[in-house]
Every structure is written in structure tokens, then in C-alpha cells.
């Protein structure tokens, strides 16, 4: 559905994307995980034709006659984008915003209005359809921003950090929308730096940093490959701190601890590696801008 082949992009002396290759299959949800400045937004920009790669190629589509560069307007009919910043007209109402972008995507006036009504209901803004955006909260704008990406029923949706800075309710609503899209077979590229989002929503996760693809796979594959060993923490009666044992077979280590002589076990805990461990392992622990 989306293929980026060895794409590179430089802004002045800064290399934003450095030879990144990625293939998002039709119907899957792929997470683009990386720290700030990793090149996620630039990658999405190139994927939809907002930015032109210095080298490499981008191809969209999976149907005959609808495959090609996102520079072609016809190919872009497949795509919906929710930019990182809310990109809507504050002086227009929620319905007018959706209907306007629907018209640009080729919907008739009637279709655009009907689709706007449908989407507003689905993102919980049905009762605010005729309100201008001036009075909307950040979460409401985020939901509308996402709805706007879906107005033309795209086959590929790119969400650039859609949950940044939203309240838990709006975040939950966005998760539900993504889950519904996934159920409908829509292909989604989801950029985030929240591990739990990626683990919860994505079929596969691509971890990027400094414009390079560091790892790609399902969460389990990434954890297995880059998460390191599990840790068994055991604290016996009379001990102040737990003893931590790194092992590839934590259950065997637990059985061994229970069967061994000595003071009774006061606390026993298995710490399995997770996506955050993978992320920190791959991208390091130093602070980013």
C-alpha cells in the first residue's frame, strides 16, 4: 500500500531522513515510533507528497491504475492525513470544515454534508456540528482533525502523533476510531512516541531515529530481538532488597528458587522486557530536543 525505498531528505545541513525503506502492507496498522526529531514527520510528509525526497522513491496504492507517486493528485485520492498540528479553519464550523475538505476530495455537495454528519457523530461531535472551532477544546479539535483525514473514505490513513496533548477521553476516542478503521481494512501509518499506543494499536512497529530505520517487526518480534533477557526478582524473609536474576527462562528460574532451601520467599516478580525497553535499547537514554 505504501512503499518508501531508500528515501533521503536533508534540510540544510540537517539530515532528516537517511536512507529509510519501509513497506506498509494493505490493511495493516504500522506504528512509526521514534524520539523527537527522529524524522517521523518528514517521513510522513514524503509519503504523501508534501515533501520531495532528495533521493529514493515513494509509491502508493495497491490497485491497478492507482499506484504511483503521491505527486499525482489521482494517487492522493487514496490518502487521508491528520497532521501533527491541528489543520482546520477556526472561523468555519465543524461541519463546514469537513464538508469543504470533502468537496476537495471530489464529493458532491450533498455527499460531503452527509459524510460530515456521519463523521461528526463518529468522533462525538455531532452536537457541535454548527459551532465554529474558536470555542473547541484541544481534544475536540484533535478529534475533528482526525475526522477530516477520513472524509473521503481513504484506503491509507497517516496519523502524525494524533494523541499529542489530548485528554484521556479524547485519546480513548481516537484509539476507538483507529480500531474501527483497522476493522474496516484501512491501512494506517501511525506516528507516535507513546509505547503503549504502538503496542496496543499496531500490527507492526518501525523504530526510527536520526532518520534511519533501526528495527521493524511485531511487538513480540522486537522484544525478542532487542528487549534483552527477562529479570526474576526474589526477596526472601530478612532481606531488605530483592535479588535480580537476568535469564532467558524465567519460569525455570522461579521453579528453582521455590525448590531451594533457605528463608521463605517474601516477594517474587518476573520482569519481562517490553517495547519501552526495546526503544531505549535502540535509541539510547540521552535527552532529545
Amino acid at each position, binding site marked *: 500500500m505504501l512503499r518508501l525505498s531508500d528515501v533521503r531528505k536533508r534540510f540544510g545541513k540537517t539530515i532528516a531522513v537517511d536512507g529509510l525503506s519501509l513497506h506498509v502492507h494493505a490493511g495493516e496498522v504500522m506504528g512509526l515510533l521514534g524520539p523527537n526529531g527522529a524524522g517521523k514527520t518528514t517521513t510522513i510528509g514524503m509519503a504523501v507528497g508534501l515533501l520531495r525526497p532528495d533521493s529514493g522513491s515513494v509509491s502508493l496504492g495497491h490497485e491497478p491504475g492507482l499506484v504511483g507517486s503521491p505527486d499525482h493528485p489521482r494517487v492522493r485520492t487514496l490518502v487521508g492525513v491528520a*497532521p501533527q498540528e491541528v489543520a482546520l*479553519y477556526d472561523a468555519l464550523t465543524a461541519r463546514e470544515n469537513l464538508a469543504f475538505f470533502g468537496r476537495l*476530495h471530489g464529493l458532491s455537495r450533498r455527499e460531503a454534508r452527509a459524510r460530515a454528519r456521519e463523521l461528526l457523530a463518529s468522533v462525538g461531535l455531532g452536537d457541535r456540528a454548527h459551532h465554529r472551532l474558536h470555542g473547541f477544546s484541544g481534544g475536540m479539535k484533535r478529534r475533528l482533525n482526525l475526522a477530516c483525514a477520513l472524509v473521503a473514505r481513504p484506503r491509507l490513513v497517516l496519523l502524525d502523533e494524533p494523541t499529542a496533548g489530548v485528554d484521556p477521553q479524547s485519546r480513548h476516542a481516537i484509539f476507538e476510531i483507529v480500531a474501527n478503521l483497522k476493522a474496516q481494512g484501512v491501512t494506517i501509518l501511525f506516528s507516535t512516541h507513546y509505547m503503549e499506543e504502538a503496542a496496543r494499536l499496531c500490527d507492526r512497529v518501525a523504530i526510527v531515529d536520526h532518520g534511519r530505520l533501526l528495527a521493524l517487526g511485531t511487538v513480540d518480534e522486537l522484544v525478542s530481538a532487542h528487549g534483552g533477557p527477562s529479570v526474576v526478582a526474589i526477596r526472601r524473609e530478612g532481606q531488605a532488597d530483592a535479588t535480580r536474576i537476568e535469564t532467558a527462562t524465567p519460569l525455570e528460574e522461579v521453579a528453582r528458587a521455590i525448590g531451594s532451601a533457605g528463608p521463605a520467599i517474601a516477594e517474587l516478580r518476573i520482569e519481562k522486557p517490553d517495547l519501552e525497553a526495546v526503544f531505549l535499547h535502540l535509541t539510547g537514554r540521552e535527552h532529545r530536543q
Partner: protein
Amino acid sequence: MKGPGVVMVLAAKDLRLLSRDKVAFFFTFVFPLLFGVLFGAVFSGAAGGDGPKAIAVAIADLDQSEDARQVMELFLGDERLRALVAQNAQEAHDLVRTGDAEAYILIPQGFGSAARMPFGGTPMSLDIGSGPSGRATRGLLTGIATQKLYQHLQSTMLDPTRAGEMLRQARQTLGAIEDLPATRRIALLGLMNAAENAVATMPTADADQTPGGAGVGAGAGAGFEIVRIAQVDVSAGGVGDNPQVLTISAFAITFPQAVLWAVMGCAAGFGVSLVGERTGGTMTRLRVAPIGRWHIVLGKALACLLTTVAVSTVLLLVAWLVFGVRPVAPFMLVLAVLALALCFVGVMMLLAVVGKTEAAASGIGWACLLTLAMIGGGAIPLAFMPPWLREVGHVSPVKWGILAIEGGLWRGLSPTEMLLPIGLLLAIGATCFTIGAAVFARRESR
């Protein structure tokens, strides 16, 4: 959707946004209308009271003679003057110094004596003073004062009693000249005898024949006139046409300027809004939509064009229906409005790429537009500008815009004469649009 439909959808969105932006709406529609009405009222003297066309003048009679009183009345009765009577020279001076009067006229002591002896060697005199910026006012007052003195002299000559008195005094003066050749003395005495006979047969001056202050050089009723000067405004039509038809309203000057301010407001507003699409993120959505970059540019251009034509039409209709500024060449006026709108659509496109933020684009844009307006006659009519500035104004589309609008409104320019301003407007617009669109496309293709 096909290209034209996309462009119209984009333009409709911009028009809707404009209608909801109260500040932009004010500067696009309301401010130009206020400009045209207020300045038109000021220039035409329709602001009420004596109106600004009447010169405020302090007049002091220092002679207190009958002749001085009569001349004073002539000044007080002149509609071109708003006379403030001062008791003495110092008060007249103070009225000018404090700004209550633009100038003063003093009728000095001895004025009556000189008036009674018009052929006695000492002429009637007046003192005229004004502030440092009143050279034109002083010149105008000198003309009016000269006219009044002639009127007074004329009325005096037509009064048999006063004329007889003057001739008797002249005869005495003639008798006192000892070295006058005999032949000349005889000739002059004969002339005086004839004059006295003529005066003796004149009817007594009618009280209603007190001279008024009508036209320049107007005579005192049934008497003679030294000179009569007709004043005609030059506009549409040829030499010899009825002067009544050719009268130019001040609103015919200020409404073309108002149209230019409206057009500049549109150009600045839509230019900044295109920058706002970029900074507000909506450009991202527009560019991801299955439309071309040219659709985005053309949508903005169409919205700007429609708004410009609409506001120009409204202003010109108000000028016509409310202030009676009827266009002498409606078709030329339509062409002028279209050319002006196209020109400033180009200017809008250029303004949209001069700054990367809305504040920068607005600041730089208005600085450029105000400069163009100043040198192009958008603020002060070119007629009031020094010649060198009028030459500089050739580079300003404001100048050609005003000329084109005036060409259809009251100048009555022929199609051939309209070619220059309309051609230049289109050329400036095309150049600005090409540069602006090229920079826009380059920026958006990174």
C-alpha cells in the same frame, strides 16, 4: 471534481472566511466607503456650516470712515469668506496666530481720505496678513480684496453726489497746479465740465444696487464691468460644452481613491490569508487533497478578484446613487474595474510570498502598499503633489488605477486613451502574479 469546480470551492471558502472576519470585512468594505464619503465631504464643503471652502478671515476697520464701513460690508457679504470682525490690528493678528482665522485684512487709517480722492495721488490700501503656510490664501485674498476695492470705486463713481464731490476736488487740485500748460488746462477743464454735466443727469444710486460678492469682477448692478471670468471644471466633453454639465463633484475624486484603498485592502487581506494557510497548517491539507497547487493559487486569486470587483462596484454605485457621481463612460469604467482587480490579484500573489509569517507579510505588504498609495495619488490627489513626485508616481499601479477609474467616471477617456492605464495595470498584475506564483510553487515543492 473538475478544475473549475475545485477553484470555485476554494474561492467560496475564502469568501466565507472573509465574511466572518470582522476586521478584514471592515477594511475591505467599510473603511473605503468612509474614506470616499468623508474626504468627499471635506473637499466639497458638504460637511456643514460655512464649509471649508470659505476662508476664515479676521477683518479690522482701523479707519472707521464711511468708505471703510462700506468696504467692510463688501467683505462680510462675500460667501467665499468667513469674516471674523476684529476690533483692532492686534486682535486680528491674534486670531490668525491662534488658528481661528487663516488670514487677516486691515483697513488702515486714511483709507476714507484716499477713497474720497481716488485721483489725488494716494491710493486706497489694505493690509493682508497670513500664517507661514498661507501663501496661496494670501494670493487669493489679494485678488478678492482688489475686486472689492474696484467694486467700491465703481459704486462711488455711480453715486452723483460722491462723483460731483470728486470732480469738484479734482477741479480745485487742477487750479492749484500753476505750471500746467494752458492748452492742457483747457482740455482738462473741458473734460471736467462734460463729466459734471453727465453726473448731473445721472439718477440717484439705488440702495438695492449695493454690490455683492458674486463672480470675480462682477459689476455693481447696472454699471459697467471691468472683466468677467467664468470658471469651468474640465471633465468629459469638449471645449464649449455646457459648463453645468462639466461640473466635477469632489466625490468623483475621492471615490476612485476609495476604490483603490478597497482594492489594496483586498490584496493585503488575501495575500496574508495565503500565508495564514501555510502557518496555520491548512496548506498541508490542501496539498494532500487530490488537487494541484495551481488550484490553490487560482482559488485564492478568484476570491480576491470577486471581492475586489464586488467592493469596487458597491463603492461606485454609492458614489452614483447617493452622491450623484454618474459615470460618463460606463463600459470604460467596467473595463477599468476589471483591469484594476486583475492587477491587484497579481499584487496579492506577490504579497503572499514576501513574508513567511502573517505578521511579516502584513507588515511588509502594507508598507509597500502605503508607499504605492502615497506616490500614486491614493492619499493626496496627484494634482497637489510636486512635479517630481508626480513623475515618481508613474511606477505605482495606484496612479494608473485611479486614472483608469476616473477615465470612465468623469474624464471620459476614449478607448485609445484608456489603453495606457489599462495596459499598464494588466502588465503590472501579470508580472507580480508570475513572480509570486513561481516563488509560491518553489516553496511548496520542497
